[in-house]
């Protein structure tokens, strides 16, 4: 199954590194937050994620064709960011390929950034950040940056990554910030970056996300629309559901 999606690494990474994922889902929180971290830290492109399951496209940046899903790195941090919606049929092999690659290459933490849709988002001044952990012991890493999720559903690539990481003993955290479901949410992305700062000891400025919020929302309109379609296909709205079992 992993051959369906391949992480193509072009440059070496440190023996130990943290892998952060910024894949498009609810509110595009991961993509917006990941982009801010990559640009602020001036991270270098070190690889791509390739698959025939992805749309046949390239993204032009400064006239150069780029893969829409790329790996950036600086020192002991690597970030995977997608500039296209992940087709529902690629979610399983993508999650498995990323976790396998991270495990083989020596990642010591997989930190996935995403959104958690709340219906009253317009009334929330400061979005809260929650964390789903592959192992309860990882709560020590949070440094008060997020509240641990106890019960609920997570749907999509991050859910599969969390499960796979738990199975192989690779520490993983999914940071999920309260956000709009269908609309790009730069404020939620800023809250997510602040949490990442606390967890990883970074100092990424989030004021630009707030200052340019309208531009980010407009720029992200099209990928949000395509992501909506894919989220519907994987029943992303099941995250609103209450699990029947407890304890």
């Amino acid at each position, binding site marked *: 199954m992993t051959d369906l999606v391949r992480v193509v690494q072009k440059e070496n990474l440190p023996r130990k590194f943290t892998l952060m994922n910024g894949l498009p889902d609810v509110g595009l929180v991961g993509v917006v937050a990941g982009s801010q971290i990559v640009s602020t830290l001036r991270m270098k492109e070190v690889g791509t994620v390739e698959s025939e399951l992805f749309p046949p496209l390239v993204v032009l940046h400064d006239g150069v064709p780029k893969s829409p899903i790329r790996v950036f790195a600086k020192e002991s941090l690597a970030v995977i960011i997608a500039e296209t919606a992940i087709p529902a049929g690629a979610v399983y092999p993508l999650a498995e390929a990323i976790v396998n690659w991270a495990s083989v290459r020596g990642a010591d933490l997989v930190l996935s950034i995403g959104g958690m849709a709340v*219906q009253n988002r*317009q009334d929330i001044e400061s979005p809260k950040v929650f964390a789903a952990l592959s192992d309860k012991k990882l709560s020590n890493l949070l440094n008060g940056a997020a509240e641990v999720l106890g019960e609920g559903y997570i749907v999509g690539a991050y859910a599969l990554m969390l499960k796979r990481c738990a199975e192989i003993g690779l520490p993983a955290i999914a940071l999920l910030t309260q956000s*709009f*479901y*269908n*609309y*790009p949410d730069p*404020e939620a992305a800023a809250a997510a970056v602040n949490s990442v700062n606390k967890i990883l000891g970074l100092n990424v400025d989030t004021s630009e996300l707030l200052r340019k*919020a*309208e*531009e980010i*929302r*407009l*720029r992200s*309109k*099209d990928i*949000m*629309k395509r992501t*909506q*379609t894919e989220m519907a296909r994987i029943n992303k709205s099941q995250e609103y559901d209450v699990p029947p079992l407890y304890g």
Partner: protein
Amino acid sequence: MNFAEYLRRTEQIAGKMLTSGWNEASSTIEPLSDIILGAREVVVTMDLPYVDPNAVKVDVIADDTIEVQANTKHKICLKDLGVKHRGTEFTLYHTVIHMPVPVDEKGMTHKLKRGILEIHLPRQT
């Protein structure tokens, strides 16, 4: 709803999903939108970055269809977003949205908060 109307609406919905939402022919932007069907009302939301809060117009054009037009605060040019080969300028959001049930125009309210337009439409009794 007759079959022809059903087909027309289905085509409209498919068209919205497949197109980019930047309508260069009419210089309008199709905003992202969402519909929530409640027990007593239908709530429509849409994301309107750069909207002029004083230039939002919502019309009920049929008992199950609304039309929204909203001017932007300034011209939006794709060149400014780095897309140099498309020079169209946009100053207007425009969309026509079909309700899942008939709504009552009289009780309609709308507000803009955090750049999100929220329209409340009571269901017809």
